[in-house]
């Protein structure tokens, strides 16, 4: 299947939609269960992906909440593996007979990049005569600002994301587009590693100026080194607009470059990067991670805002 449309929808509309499947991430963040509680979903096909590690008090609370509904399928899963998602999707979709449209809700607020990308990866190689359209509703619960942990300077590893990277010829230079987050050294390191012309995306002050300021402070050196015209601000609550800026930049750059997207910041931006990588050729998405885990766990409380992106796949 291929992506035929993406559009932001108002979170209130989720209440009126019927979902065939839904997926939630269950972690230590309080916002893990925020959408679930809001929607009060009572589906047969709820899947809850619960992190195997870091099972602290918050996590147990969230897990117990999900367990209250005996219909929920709780899967203790590894955040670095997508096999459980694949199996769940596979089992469900293969059973469907003559369905015009399937709606799947994904609350990716507490999901890892591997998990949130797994749905897209699966559908790209999915083919069925019985189903003509699959709509993924990616829902993200925003959180109140919390002071970030000090990012590790060392032990950084970079690698293309499986399923979002193809072989290409190195006949054009690389353009690196970084979604700025708190991991300043990761962004500098990757920029240096690829020896690429760098473009920076960071949130504007339309939503959380505290977050914006703290990210800019964290990355002040990198921002000084990147050309002014290569820095883009985006309004995190307006996904359509953000996607249009990103898409416009990518299509222009692709005339003379190959592209690596390295989303280090907000997951909404990460999701858009994954989508663009599937829509356009020669656009890879890379992951940057630190092998040194930060000891402090930061809880994220929901602030009430939810952003939803609908991604439509068709044959």
């Amino acid at each position, binding site marked *: 299947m291929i992506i035929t449309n993406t559009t932001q929808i108002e979170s209130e509309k989720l209440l009126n939609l019927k979902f065939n499947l839904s997926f939630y991430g269950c972690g230590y963040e309080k916002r893990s269960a925020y959408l679930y509680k809001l929607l009060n979903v009572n589906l047969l096909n709820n899947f809850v992906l619960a992190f195997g590690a870091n099972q602290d008090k918050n996590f147990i609370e969230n897990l117990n909440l999900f367990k209250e509904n005996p219909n929920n399928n709780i899967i203790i899963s590894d955040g670095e593996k997508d096999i459980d998602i694949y199996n769940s999707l596979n089992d469900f979709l293969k059973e469907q007979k003559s369905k015009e449209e399937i709606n799947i809700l994904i609350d990716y607020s507490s999901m890892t990049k591997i998990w949130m990308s797994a749905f897209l990866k699966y559908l790209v190689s999915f083919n069925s005569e019985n189903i003509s359209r699959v709509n993924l509703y990616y829902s993200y619960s925003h959180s109140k600002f919390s002071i970030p942990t000090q990012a590790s300077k060392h032990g950084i590893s970079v690698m293309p994301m499986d399923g979002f990277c193809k072989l290409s010829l190195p006949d054009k230079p690389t353009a690196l587009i970084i979604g700025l987050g708190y991991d300043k050294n990761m962004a500098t390191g990757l920029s240096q590693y690829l020896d690429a012309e760098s473009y920076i995306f960071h949130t504007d002050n339309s939503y959380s100026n505290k977050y914006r300021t703290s990210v800019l402070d964290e990355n002040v050196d990198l921002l000084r080194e990147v050309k*002014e*015209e290569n820095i883009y601000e985006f*309004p995190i609550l307006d996904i359509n607009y953000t996607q*249009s800026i990103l898409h416009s*930049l990518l*299509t*222009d750059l692709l*005339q*003379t470059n190959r592209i690596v997207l390295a989303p280090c910041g907000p997951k909404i931006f990460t999701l858009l990067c994954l989508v663009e990588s599937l829509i356009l050729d020669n656009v890879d998405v890379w992951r940057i991670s630190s092998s040194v885990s930060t000891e402090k766990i930061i809880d994220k409380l929901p602030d009430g805002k939810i952003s939803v992106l609908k991604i439509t796949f068709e044959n």
Partner: protein
Amino acid sequence: MGEILKIAVISDLHCTQRDIPRGKFTNLHTTMPSKPSNRNPIEAFRKLLENETIEADILLCPGDITDQINEQGFHTGWSYLEEMGKYLKVKNIYATLGNHDVASRLEKPNEAFKIAQSLKYNFPLPESEQQIKFWGENFTLIETDEFRLLIYNTVHDHYNSETSKKINIDLATIEKIDDLLKKTKPEKFGIAMTHHHPINHCNSNLSDSDFIDKGDNLLKVLNRHSFKLFIHGHKHEPMLRVSNGIPILSSGSFSCLENLKETESENLFHIIEIHEKKGIIKSWEYGPVNGWHQKQSNTSFPNLTGFGFFGTVEKLASEINSWLSKKASSSGNLKMLCKDIPDIYHINPEEQKKLEKILKTEYSIEITPGIFFGDRATINTIYE
């Protein structure tokens, strides 16, 4: 009439203030730093003209200079057009109103056109007589030694939200136009310009109810009087089609971002070169990194297309085949081909695709990478 007439078309600027909600729907703002230049469409335009010789005799703007009747946007938008006109070295700028240039939502009929009518002495037309006609009769005809330009104001009755739902031209006006055109010289190249489209123009899933009612009647009249080109704005999706014998150019948008994603279009402007009733349209697209440039790929609207060819594509393909057969190498380029068969550049995008397909399937001839590539495109018999 051996001279080439060059027309620049810049449409749907939607210029407005940066810091209002609608500001993010356009790349053109009332305040814009000149650097970085590629993020400023006007600066990028100036840079393009610094590096390439692009000139025009006249500049046409089919409306929507501002966005939602933003007054500052209107003034600045018009001054941007004047600035670009200077860079292009045009003799005159001719514009019309778009639906965004009228305060129809104010629900005050007397004030709907207030800003437009008092914008500047040369808006929307350079001479006061032309303006009197435009405001009074909702159309005007400009006749010079080289061309006839008919401009019809499709928003002339957009006094309120109710009346602005309809776009039309009444029969009386069509008759007036017809009578006026009878007095003109048909050998002069005829161009018509409106904001809205004269016939149906569906794009993507968006509905289309705002074409000009009785627009096809207008087209018939224009065709009778040997008008050879109809230019409109409004749809933000560039397109070139023929209806009632007249090529219709939807000029797309210079800087508005609305509907681009749905129609897979880009912001662009055009330079039309007209020679002996036929034309070549060259288009430049805008990108935040490359500024204004001619795309080197065959997606969306081609950067080189044309109009005025009224033969059949099948015959054209046959002529090309004969031409190539006479070449010892069965090989050449479009520059050479065009000298003998100039019509290769006077076909619209649909005809280009059809021609390339016929050449390939029936004659085993390929133009690489495509007609859009211009003079440097090569033409060969296919190797099997």
